């Protein structure tokens, strides 16, 4: 698949050769062939990306028996499967927990990342480069590297295991990835705006809140979205801290047990799977611009 996508844009350009008709006609034919080739590949690729969603959806509305049959199209449409999922004990709690983790986590992250990113982007001080290197290093580290001592502190000293607080509280102290991304964004704000605010008598805090934050809204939106998605999708964190207390599970963590509890009911599992995907996809559609901007920001060179 990969090789066809790579060669497709160029390949048709050559097939137009050896034609006796005029150059204008030939050019038009080449363009047409090119169009056909590109869009054929595009449709094939779209099938690869979209069909999994389609199969998940179709299975989610099948009857229990049919979901185990290997048939592709539902004979009867059991919309009630979705109600059954919602009435599964715990499912609503998982929703609530996911929202709390993602909501508070995002709020804490943004509040703590803004001043740090601002200082790293706009202040000149000794050790700035070292600080940036440390931020990037933390960002790159697998979370498993430090999880054991952290777990021991939360569980044995603070007695907070069995809840999501060990995941939420650290976010009030700066998340490396958010700091890095926001700092890249803040670098693009011209120094003159900050200087003129100072000339007008603004202190650092006022400059940050009145001038920088409004200008950095797209960047802040991007890190907020990323953090929301990170928390929503997190599996490792809840597994470490909330595993022993089903009342504290999140959707991402609970989904797996859903499959287990319902044994082989693929239809209900697929309904639950879709229900977990939907909020993220809705958030994306409402905030598409900020999101794509954030993704490109990761690749931006300073």
């Amino acid at each position, binding site marked *: *698949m*990969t090789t066809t*996508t*790579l*060669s497709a*844009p*160029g390949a048709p*350009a*050559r097939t137009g050769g050896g034609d006796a008709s005029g150059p204008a006609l030939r050019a038009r034919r080449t363009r047409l062939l090119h169009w056909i080739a590109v*869009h054929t590949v*595009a449709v094939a*690729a*779209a099938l*690869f*990306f979209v069909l999994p969603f389609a*199969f*998940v959806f179709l*299975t989610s509305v099948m009857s229990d028996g049919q979901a185990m*049959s*290997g*048939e*592709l199209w539902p004979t009867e449409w059991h919309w009630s499967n979705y109600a059954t999922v919602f009435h599964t004990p715990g499912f609503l709690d998982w929703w609530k927990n996911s929202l709390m983790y993602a909501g508070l986590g995002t709020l804490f992250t943004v509040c*703590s990342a803004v*001043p740090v990113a601002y200082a790293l982007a706009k202040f000149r001080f000794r050790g700035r*480069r070292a*600080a940036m290197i440390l931020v*990037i*290093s*933390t960002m*790159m580290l*697998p979370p*498993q*590297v430090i*999880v*054991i*001592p952290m*777990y*021991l502190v939360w569980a044995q000293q603070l007695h907070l295991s069995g809840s999501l607080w060990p995941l939420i509280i650290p976010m009030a*102290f700066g998340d490396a990835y958010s700091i890095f991304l926001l700092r890249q964004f803040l670098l693009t704000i011209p120094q003159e705006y900050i200087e003129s605010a100072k000339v007008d008598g603004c202190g650092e805090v006022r400059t940050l809140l009145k001038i920088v934050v409004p200008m950095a809204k797209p960047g802040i939106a991007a890190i907020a979205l990323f953090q929301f998605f990170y928390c929503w*999708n997190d*599996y*490792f964190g809840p597994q*470490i801290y909330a*595993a022993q207390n089903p009342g504290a599970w999140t959707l*991402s963590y609970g*989904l*797996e*047990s859903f*499959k*287990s*509890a319902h044994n082989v009911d*693929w239809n209900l599992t*697929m309904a639950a*799977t879709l229900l*977990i995907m939907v909020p*993220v*996809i809705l958030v994306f559609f409402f905030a598409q611009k900020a999101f*794509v901007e954030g993704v*490109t920001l990761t*690749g931006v060179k300073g």
Partner: protein
Amino acid sequence: MALNTRAPALRRKKMREKLRTVGFLSPWLVGFSVFFGYPLLATIYFSFMHYNQIEQPAFVGLKNWKYVLTQMPLFGPALWNTLWLVVVMVALRVVFGLGIGLLVTKIKSGAGFFRTAFYLPYLAPPVAATVAFVFLLNPGTGPVNEILGAVGIDAPSWFNDPNWAKPSLVLLSLWGIGDLMVIFMAALLDVPREQYEAAELDGAGAWGKFRYVTWPAITPIVMFAVVTGVVQTMQYYTQALVAGKLASGITIGPGTVIQPGYPDHSTLTVPQLVYSLGFQNFNTGAACVLSLVLFVIAMAVTTLLMRKRAGLLPAED
């Protein structure tokens, strides 16, 4: 005289600036020391201890290190699987992402639809995407094998076959190519059009244009994608764990202790082994040794990343 009066004022200003910097950085300074510095040091400490999380830790010297590096049976498979994924998954993701990125820039009709369709799977939460793929590819009743069977292809058992489990994970990762697609698309659109026109005048074909115009322009982004891909793949955990657990068909809750890596340790990655050692076997010492091995590899890659200036740390910093 003038110097004398100005020096303290200047020093006061410097002092104030320093305090201001520290103040703004303070959330991160606290976070970095408490949630990174401390646990890292503690990990090193525990790697020399025998500690089962009930009795007091006891010093055992290099015993844990020797055990993990030379005796532990699962260390080899875990390291091999992680390296396999780092090489194969990252390479295929970059090539596929570049291909899809190129494709998207060529689409004339329905560009918005295609872009969204290609991007959406990236948004699917990893657990949900994995559950979906385990269903799609299940050898009994999965739609993929139903279709392959209908057209007469002898389909593999995907997540249930030790030889196919990792390729299945790669397939899952290619489905979520959206992030790389967007990055490559942005980079490709940034290549100046005049350069293509100039290359065309010089008689360059499609391949020539890609090789001499596109490729040099996007190399930094490709480099960036490779290095961040390597870093991400070294942390590869959720998808491998969930796929292994679900495919194994063991129908008990996620709190249950099952050895990860089904089938035949073929999906066991280093991070999973850290979890298994530390939270299932309560062998804190060995788990910390393995954490540090992972740490060293990750640091080596990170250093490479900053050396090669893969777009992460601006040169003037």
